């Protein structure tokens, strides 16, 4: 037996022991029994007569939704701020340092609570401030207009825009211009395709409109801004790690500054920064469990609710642990896959 086999054997034995312990202490019928929990679900529908297992599934989807949106926003904000930090302009670098320094020393739970209390101090739905009568922000959350598919004339106009855009795609324009034009086209098509129905303001709430609760808003906003600081540091480090010789060579070849960034710096920086960025994403997914502090219905809070209502500690905790191990395992598989692919492509 070599050392790899021995280590594997220990892992298998550990997993087996854990599985036997769980099988002895867990009553599988518990998961399928009616829960009677009253939880507010954001993505999936929920009914109190459903089982504990479906309550956990609903909560897991809520956690995933918050985590994925926070990941996306943190990447967008963080990459922007991090690129400011690599500019030659000292003011831009100062802005980046200030942003990172503002979030570095505080716990993420503090930021979540702060955003929640800022949200609570907003005006009530009846006096909610609005943006062009379409988007309302109140102390209950954000209300977006409901979208309906537009009529045939608008749809055909959108198809025309799409056709023109595709035809223009082959024209020799600089990359920056192409990016702006395609973004504009997409926005125009979306605007043509959908009709927005403005939310109706009532005295105690909104009669119509797509409502995003304040807890979700505070959690995702806090996670996005907080972890954007980490992503900014990663971006700054990754761009700084690209060798100056490579960039000077690109300059000597006559590449324009945007092309230089797009074709030389960005792909190389992506290779340097991606592993740490994926690590940060895992931290974001774990941090969604802090939504329990502000009453967001995520997995940890539902686990605690069902623990206190049924008294079954091991069942709830093991299911929650399984979820996080699955998330972590998936992300590590993705990291390994990407690392292997990037290494084989250019032998770095």
């Amino acid at each position: 037996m070599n050392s790899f086999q021995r280590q594997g054997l220990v892992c298998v034995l550990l997993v087996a022991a854990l599985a036997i312990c769980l099988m002895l202490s867990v009553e599988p019928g518990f998961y399928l029994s009616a829960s009677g929990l009253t939880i507010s679900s954001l993505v999936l529908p929920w009914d109190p007569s459903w089982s504990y297992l479906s309550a956990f599934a609903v909560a897991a989807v809520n956690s995933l939704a918050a985590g994925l949106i926070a990941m996306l926003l943190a990447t967008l904000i963080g990459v922007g701020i991090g690129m400011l930090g690599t500019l030659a302009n000292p003011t831009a670098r100062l802005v980046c340092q200030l942003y990172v320094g503002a979030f570095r020393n505080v716990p993420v739970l503090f930021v979540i609570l702060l955003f929640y209390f800022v949200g609570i101090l907003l005006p009530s739905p009846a006096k909610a401030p609005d943006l062009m009568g379409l988007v309302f922000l109140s102390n209950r959350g954000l209300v977006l207009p409901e979208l309906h598919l537009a009529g045939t004339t608008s749809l055909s106009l959108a198809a025309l825009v799409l056709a023109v855009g595709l035809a223009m795609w082959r024209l020799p324009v600089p990359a920056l211009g192409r990016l702006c034009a395609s973004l504009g086209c997409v926005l125009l098509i979306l605007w043509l395709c959908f009709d927005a129905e403005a939310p109706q303001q009532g005295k105690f709430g909104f009669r119509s409109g797509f409502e995003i609760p304040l807890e979700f808003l505070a959690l995702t906003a806090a996670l996005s801004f907080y972890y954007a600081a980490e992503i900014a540091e990663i971006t700054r480090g990754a761009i700084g790690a690209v060798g100056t010789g490579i960039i000077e060579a690109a300059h000597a070849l006559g590449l324009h500054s945007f092309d230089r960034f797009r074709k030389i710096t960005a792909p190389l920086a992506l290779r340097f920064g991606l592993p740490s960025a994926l690590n940060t994403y895992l931290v974001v997914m774990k941090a969604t469990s802090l939504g329990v502090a502000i009453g967001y219905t995520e997995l940890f809070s539902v686990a605690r609710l069902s623990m206190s209502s049924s008294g079954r500690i091991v069942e709830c905790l093991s299911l929650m642990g399984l979820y996080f191990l699955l998330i972590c395992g998936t992300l590590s598989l993705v990291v390994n896959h990407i690392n292997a692919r990037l290494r084989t492509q250019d032998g770095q």
Partner: protein
Amino acid sequence: MTSFPARSNSRVHRIGFLIFLALLAVLLQPFFRWALLDASWSGDAETCRAGAGACWASVRLRLEFLIYGFYPAELRWRPFTGLIIQGLALLAIWALPGIHQRLSRSYCVVLAAFVASFWLLAGDGLLLTDVPSRLWTGFSLTVLLAFGGFVLAFPLGVLLAFGRRFGNDYVVALCGCYIEVMRALPSVVTMFAILVIAPYLLPSVIGENIFLRILLGFVLAMSAFYAEALRGALLTLDKGQIEAAQSLGLRRFSIHCRIILPQVVILSFPALMNINLMVFKDTVLILTYGYYELLGAANASVNTQEWSSFAMEMFLVVYLVFLGAGMLISVVGRRIEESRQRV
């Protein structure tokens, strides 16, 4: 877009900086008016509602609660002395070269400060009266938990990291599994699991003391992060060092303690300081179990009917405390690191 050596366009930079300053002034002016000019410094909630600005009276009235929480009023000199001792310990590490030039002495100072302030808070039943652990709350709890987390989790992390690197195959697999599982689960969940399960498994001394249960969960969760921070340095360590030490006839224990550990700690010092900062920040997680440390106390005091509209003042104070403590940790860490590099 990159740090390509650009032409020196210092005039553009200067104008940009001026625009930034002007923007900052415009943005910060209402804040200063709110925080300083229009603020009400004394009185109660009624006078605060009459004024337009910040209500520092709310913080002043709650200051004792923020620091000591529910600790009995006549015994508050004890957490106060504990805080002073812990502050003095950090100050001593920073100021005295005899301490920060030796890693073991720095660690021992922190350990002594933790033991002393734990004894002060808990009491022993003989010299000091016992105070139930439910009542240790507020900022004194935050600092005690952070010190305890470092003092206990760091040695455990070292053991885990060394077990993963130098142990036999079974030890390697065990330590690896422990580290990976602890890092995959959120600390708030692991700590909660241990907090809930500990009373069934452990003797009643630990099982009935809430602080010790929380500390146990905290230490078990944080040690994995310390171990992971040490791993990179352990992997890069030259094997020749161990062989040289063996040929000198050193025992295995002294090889690990005197040759490997100091080098590994210095090599991974920035990562370890990051973990220390994380330990300090993660003390706030216990507020989700209804156990009030600094942020929990602030949260509880703004959740009352009377003060709910003055949440921002409280949060600003907590923010400044975290900012100051984080800077203190980095300053002390940098002092230790610099003194090692000079040698």
